[in-house]
């Protein structure tokens, strides 16, 4: 093996390993040569030896048994903290402050988090419409609409005495539409004559909260479907005769009432239908309806979505006015400053009104 030659610096750096006996034979020999040749290396080895001897003596330090016992019985930091924390031992202001902080945190959490929770369970629909809770305000608008209907020229108001007619419109209008609010009940009472002369109207179930909830459920649309309805107005010479036939026709084509009122709901000046019909029977229905008179049909969008194979209709069968009666009605309508054929089914029906309310 080739002999190693180490510099003085390398010898000094290897002195600890040399002293510990961790060098291989070649390096050990090289360091020994360095020790012989260099006094500086010898001085460094002397320091190292003194240091090691000092440590040999120092490590004889012993630890007493009481100290070991004391350390072994020392509680853990967590135990120490728990033992120090005594609630009843705390000063009263500190306890009050702590309680106040806890209450403040709880309130702030409630205030910041609870609205989120409410919003999270809100009734936002897929269609983008938010279904709001039903309130009674729309019912007032129904009464207003009904007012308009009552002012039509065909109304039996012509036969009624003038003072009653003058004061009655509001009262008469309330008669066919049983309002849920108890305030309208006394209004109906003083107008027996109007009620007597008006055509007999089947009682309409009031939109109870349950019904409203049902309507809300219905307004939750499926993602796919028909978001429209057909508005039809049929003019007929004799509404009383045509109404049962149209009802029969709708039923025979698989139609079903879509709202709360019966098919062919008889009202002043016409009959009202709100129904759903299989899509396949739409054309057949229109063809059959032509037999009863001229009609107009408008397809209009509506937030309430129907299933794919079903369409929704609102049909208003209106009395076809003669020239004479229309002239008379015109005079009367001028007095009332209300257009005679203004009321559309969409405005006058509870279903529509509630539907539009839903759509808001």
């Amino acid at each position: 093996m080739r002999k190693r030659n180490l510099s003085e610096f390398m010898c000094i750096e290897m002195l600890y390993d040399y002293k510990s006996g961790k060098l291989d034979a070649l390096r050990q020999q090289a360091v020994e040569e360095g020790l012989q040749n260099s006094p500086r290396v010898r001085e460094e080895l002397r320091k190292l030896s003194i240091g090691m001897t000092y440590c040999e003596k120092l490590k004889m330090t012993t630890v007493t048994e009481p100290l070991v016992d004391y350390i072994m019985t020392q509680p853990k930091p967590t135990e120490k903290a728990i033992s120090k924390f005594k609630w009843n031992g705390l000063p009263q202001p500190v306890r009050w402050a702590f309680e106040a902080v806890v209450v403040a945190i709880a309130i702030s959490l409630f205030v910041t988090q609870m609205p989120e929770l409410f919003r999270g369970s809100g009734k936002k629909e897929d269609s983008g419409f938010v279904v709001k809770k039903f309130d009674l305000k729309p019912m007032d608008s129904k009464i207003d609409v009904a007012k308009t209907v009552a002012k039509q020229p065909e109304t039996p108001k012509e036969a009624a005495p003038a003072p009653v007619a003058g004061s009655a419109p509001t009262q008469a209008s309330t008669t066919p539409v049983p309002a849920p609010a108890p305030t309208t009940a006394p209004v109906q009472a003083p107008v027996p004559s109007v009620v007597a002369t008006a055509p007999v109207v089947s009682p309409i179930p009031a939109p109870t909260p349950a019904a409203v909830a049902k309507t809300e459920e219905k307004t939750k649309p499926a993602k796919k479907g028909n978001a429209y309805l057909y508005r039809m107005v049929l003019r007929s010479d004799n509404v009383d005769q045509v109404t049962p036939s149209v009802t029969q026709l709708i039923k025979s084509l698989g139609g079903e009432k879509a709202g709360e009122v019966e098919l062919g709901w008889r009202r002043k000046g016409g009959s009202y239908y709100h129904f759903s019909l299989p899509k396949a029977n739409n054309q057949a229905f229109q063809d059959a309806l032509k037999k009863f008179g001229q009609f107009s049909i408008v397809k209009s969008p509506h937030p309430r979505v129907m299933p794919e194979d079903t369409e929704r209709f609102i049909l208003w069968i209106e009395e076809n006015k003669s020239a004479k009666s229309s002239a008379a009605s015109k005079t009367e309508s001028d007095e009332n400053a209300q257009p005679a054929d203004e009321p559309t089914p969409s405005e006058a029906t509870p279903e529509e009104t509630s539907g539009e309310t839903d759509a808001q």
Partner: protein
Amino acid sequence: MKEAQIKSVALFFFYTFLDKSLALRATAESMHLFERRLKERDPLAPKDPVLVYSTYKIWKKYSKKRSIKSQDFPLNSEGWIMPDGIKMEPWRQFVKDTDPQIYLAVIWSHLLQFNDKDISEGLGVTEGSVRYRVGRGLKILGQIVSPAGAFDAQA
């Protein structure tokens, strides 16, 4: 925990802090850390690296707290018994003037008799680094001891 481990830790903090009260507190805390770390490790793995790690962690923590007023020593006995014929002044100066990494290596290696591998594993350094620190520390210590005549190496 074993008594030998407690003694090693108690000696380590005695040599580093040279303050009995502080050393006692640090020893107790270091032993709790040592136990916690042992639970996370393989029970068959060597414990000396964990002891080195625990003592080093607590030493770093307490070395920052050195300005804190030392408490009264709670034991009636001395706690640490020094061998006869040795002066502590050179050691005190050594700890005061030397880089902590160097004198800590000397303590672990030559006073507590841990092997270089365990020290290097506990500190996360190479064995060569440990040996270099120990050698350098011993030379410094020898230089401090020799002029002072605290211990006659030739004797």
